[in-house]
């Protein structure tokens, strides 16, 4: 092999090889970066908040000026709820119950001053909330209420309140450290409860408490007050089903679905990444041609030598091997360098993103590495076949 290499390396053009190296590096790096960027950012738009599955929609009546002026109700009557439940797309329908009394609450991190506000509670049947029973339990003796807050509150706190007061920012994981004091005002009495924030939801835009607490507190503080729902929650087979939109339009209902926005963002992200990846693959293909031209030129210049080797009994496979190993080595070098170049860039953009979205931790690097490895294998295989075919063409002088 050493002698064979000594013979065949002659006429090897280092600048041509460098050209291929740089071009392939560029292509592979762009592809891997595109994939990595997508893997890191897509979960930001598509992730589930853990409290509600992907197949829930929240339905309310459209608020219009005419309806407001005419005093038409926003409430759902029983017939409307049953009609919605009987639709083929609806698997289960639940009502939103709301607190009939006045509530104020203060929230803050342990040890730091909080902010207080008047608010309200809502609840949906427990079967719609995917939280383990123990966490979502209300015991009147304990006077602690589990609460799920809208994620927009987190942003409001982090970028509004905490930033202006120089307080630390809160991430999802720190939810349990939030101190929440709830004060219920009813019939001239004030009753204090402790709120236990179990997390943030981007799916349901309300302050959610267990239905058991709401029923208990409504009965206790505002007995006899009517609670007709203004919002319904429905579990559906496929939230993107067109029949849902048609039905909602025909009834003048609105569907709250921030996943639609997320879907659009993911769609554009996918288009951009596809474009970038496409350009990367194009560069890879061009670089492959550079290498092939270079190897063809090399084989051409070494034709006589290669023919002589074949004539003294070397197989085409053995004669091709040094050139094949050369391309393999170059390709592996490109792959490794592409990874080395990818990591710092990723660290940089993740740092930028985490400034805006502290809860984003990014995806794994494996998908980019696997795609890079696939490019490595495909390019090398093409190189191998092309070199072998060229050498096979020399069999007869």
């Amino acid at each position, binding site marked *: 092999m050493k*002698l064979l290499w*000594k*013979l065949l390396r002659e006429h090897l053009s280092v600048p041509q090889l460098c050209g291929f190296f740089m071009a392939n590096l560029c292509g592979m790096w762009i592809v891997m970066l595109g994939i990595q960027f997508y893997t890191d950012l897509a979960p930001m738009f598509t992730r589930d908040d853990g409290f509600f599955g992907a197949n829930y929609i929240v339905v309310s009546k459209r608020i219009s000026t005419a309806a407001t002026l005419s005093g038409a109700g926003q409430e759902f009557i029983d017939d409307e709820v049953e009609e919605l439940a009987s639709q083929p797309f609806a698997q289960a329908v639940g009502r939103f119950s709301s607190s009939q009394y006045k509530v104020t609450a203060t929230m803050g991190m342990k040890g730091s001053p909080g902010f207080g506000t008047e608010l309200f509670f809502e609840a949906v049947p427990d079967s719609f909330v995917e939280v383990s029973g123990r966490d979502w339990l209300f015991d009147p003796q304990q006077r602690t209420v589990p609460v799920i807050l809208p994620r927009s509150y987190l942003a409001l706190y982090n970028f509004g309140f905490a930033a202006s007061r120089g307080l630390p920012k809160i991430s999802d994981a720190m939810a349990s450290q939030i101190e929440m004091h709830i004060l219920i005002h009813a019939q001239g009495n004030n009753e204090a409860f402790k709120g236990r924030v179990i997390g943030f939801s981007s799916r349901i835009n309300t302050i959610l408490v267990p239905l058991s607490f709401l029923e208990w507190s409504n009965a206790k503080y505002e007995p006899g007050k009517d609670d007709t729902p203004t919002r319904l929650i429905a579990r559906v087979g496929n939230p993107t089903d067109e029949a849902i939109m048609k039905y909602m339009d025909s009834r003048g209902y609105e569907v709250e679905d921030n996943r639609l926005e997320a879907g659009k963002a993911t769609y554009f992200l996918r288009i951009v990444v596809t474009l970038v990846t496409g350009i990367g693959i194009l560069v890879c293909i061009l670089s492959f041609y550079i290498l092939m031209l270079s190897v063809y030129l090399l084989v051409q210049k070494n034709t006589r030598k290669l023919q002589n080797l074949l*004539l*003294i*009994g070397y197989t085409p496979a053995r004669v091709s091997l040094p050139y094949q190993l050369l391309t393999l080595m170059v390709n592996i070098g490109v792959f490794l360098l592409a990874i080395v170049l990818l990591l710092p860039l990723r660290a940089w953009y993740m740092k930028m993103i985490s400034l805006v979205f502290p809860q984003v931790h990014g995806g794994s690097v494996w998908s980019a590495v696997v795609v890079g490895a696939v490019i490595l294998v495909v390019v090398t295989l093409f190189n191998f076949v092309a070199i072998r075919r060229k050498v096979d063409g020399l*069999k*007869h002088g």
Partner: protein
Amino acid sequence: MQTIRLNRLLPHVFLERKDSLQSDVWLQDLTLSRGKSYLVEAMSGTGKSSLCAYLIGYRNDFDGQILFDDTDASRLTTAQWTQLRVQTFAYLFQELRLFPELTALENIEIKNRLTQHKSAAWIDQAFERLGIAEKRHTKIGRMSFGQQQRVAFIRAMVQPADFILLDEPVSHLDDANAQAMAQLLTEEQQVSGAAVIVTSIGKHLPIHYDHTLHL
């Protein structure tokens, strides 16, 4: 391989002269057998190197048939030809086909590593006997054609063979070196029992020939 049969073989370049051709080889039914020695005498341009190229599968621009034992040479695969070039045909090319960027010894090694047929001691001795011992580490490009001929001869010997083809092996050698080469060849032939086919346009390698063929 025991026999090579040339069945009405004719190079395409001789098709026009087909009727006036007088040859012991072309258009004849000729069998070359293992263990025998053949001298193929020829004038320049009578197709001597073509014959060798056909036998080792380098060219196939001919009519007729070449049979290796009972196998038609035209049906051989690349892998089979490669096998023949390593195991069956030892060949000294008229144009030598050495690698000028390698030394004399490396030119031998590049073949011997493939066949693992001769020891380093045998190779040293061959260099010695052919009078080029001091040229072992000299690049081929810096050696005379006569010296290169002897290196090419050693390279042809470092493989097992049923047929040893030598295309004008002594064209640039003096009598003493031709004699040394003949001696070495005869010894190898006695060990392997191979056939020897030597072509010549004038000067003959001095060995005993069983048949002389005029091309």
